[in-house]
């Protein structure tokens, strides 16, 4: 059994994968939610997956975060484990079953965050080497100040890792968050071409953005093919 198989992640599957990426406050979650509603109401088999929601790994992740046990490497690995669990048990079977799988954040979130924390970009790309690239990735491009204002205007309680406090950029959580997000934003911009993101201007009215998103999805995929075949 030493003749191990190479991981093949380019095989054509009946289902398709759509990811949305962008900063916190870029409006991507709103947009992917509206996209999901639209598809559902058209009788399309759609599944929505959020970053960081698997049950098996959740306990360890929240323990690590609460007790600040995580280093950049373990932070990266534990999130990748969590992602792999959802990917292998949920996303991949759904893709094989012909679903449109919508992801609020995908591996690019990890590439950006973990690289900012100091992980090697090459190592990260290999780490996620078992994962398919999305068939379509939207990048909600919102200027840093706009995204920051959307998040920070409510003066929310920022969690330790969320604010990037582990990077030691600033002792003030809000200032730390700003500096952290700025670096993440730079990583996103650098990945746009590498991974063929479709950029949506995240400053426009919500309806206009959604119209663009729906239009692109409808043109990219033969949507009737994803309809439920069974009658309820």
């Amino acid at each position: 059994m030493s003749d191990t198989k190479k991981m093949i992640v380019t095989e054509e599957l009946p289902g398709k994968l759509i990811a949305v990426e962008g900063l916190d406050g870029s409006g991507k979650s709103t947009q992917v939610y509206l996209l999901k509603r639209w598809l559902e109401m058209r009788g399309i088999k759609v599944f929505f997956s959020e970053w960081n929601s698997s049950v098996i790994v959740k306990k360890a992740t929240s323990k690590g975060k609460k007790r600040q046990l995580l280093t950049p490497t373990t932070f990266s690995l534990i999130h990748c484990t969590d992602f792999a669990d959802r990917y292998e048990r949920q996303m991949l079977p759904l893709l094989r079953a012909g679903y449109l799988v919508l992801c609020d954040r995908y591996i690019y979130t990890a590439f950006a965050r973990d690289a900012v924390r100091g992980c090697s970009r090459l190592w990260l790309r290999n780490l996620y080497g078992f994962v398919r690239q999305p068939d379509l990735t939207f990048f909600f491009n919102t200027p840093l100040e706009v995204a920051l204002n959307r998040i920070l205007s409510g003066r929310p309680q920022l969690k330790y890792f969320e604010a990037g406090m582990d990077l030691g950029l600033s002792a003030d959580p809000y200032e730390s968050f700003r500096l952290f997000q700025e670096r993440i934003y730079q990583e996103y911009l650098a990945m746009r071409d590498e991974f063929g993101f479709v950029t949506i201007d995240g400053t426009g009215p919500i309806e206009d953005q959604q119209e663009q998103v729906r239009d692109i999805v409808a043109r990219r995929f033969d949507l009737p093919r994803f309809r439920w075949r069974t009658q309820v």
Partner: protein
Amino acid sequence: MKFYGEGIAGVNLAELSGKLIVIEGADGSGRSTQIDLLRNYLENTGRAITNVGLVRSTLVSNELNEAKQGNVLSEITRSLFYATDFADQLENIIVPSLRAGFIVLADRYIYTLMAREIVRGADRDWVRSLYGIALVPQLIIYLKVSPGQLVERNLRKNATLDYWESGRDLGISRDVFKSFMRYQRLIQKEFSMIQTEFGFHVVNGNRAIRSVSREICAQVEEVLNREEK
């Protein structure tokens, strides 16, 4: 010291003045016994020791043990869970100990983890890159014991063969005994494939405890003396 691959962020290799010594071998190969004896020997000569092993991290070891019981993890998820456990110990125990000039005795290391994944069909390059975070040890002892002897020692100790050490998840045989023998042979084959590349010092573990221990202590002493020069 150096890393196998990309390494981990924030570690200054020049600061690591300790030594990393790994003992590899299957369950029942005498690893723990030999590690205890080696520890005695080294402490007797005034060296400070830290012990590490697999699935002992604060971060995920409980969760990993729980998940193993239920056998609910998919292949890649399980690989990554083990890697997380390893990385947690690497960063929180191994590196700080080496920085403090300790000798770290590792009861198994990345080679067992890699071999287990590879016999289960994982992509070799992917596994290598994943464990590119690991430090290259000064010495890797591989306690090689024949599957026949392993069975005897395991049964003598536990009167049963472990599910994972028998590779039962692979479905090689419905017979536990056959499954154990075949799985251990697969692992040994994988170890012989990588032993030159990683520079294992192979020790014949079929012999009496004392003579194995003498060989290991002599080998460790030689490496420590060479390094100290």
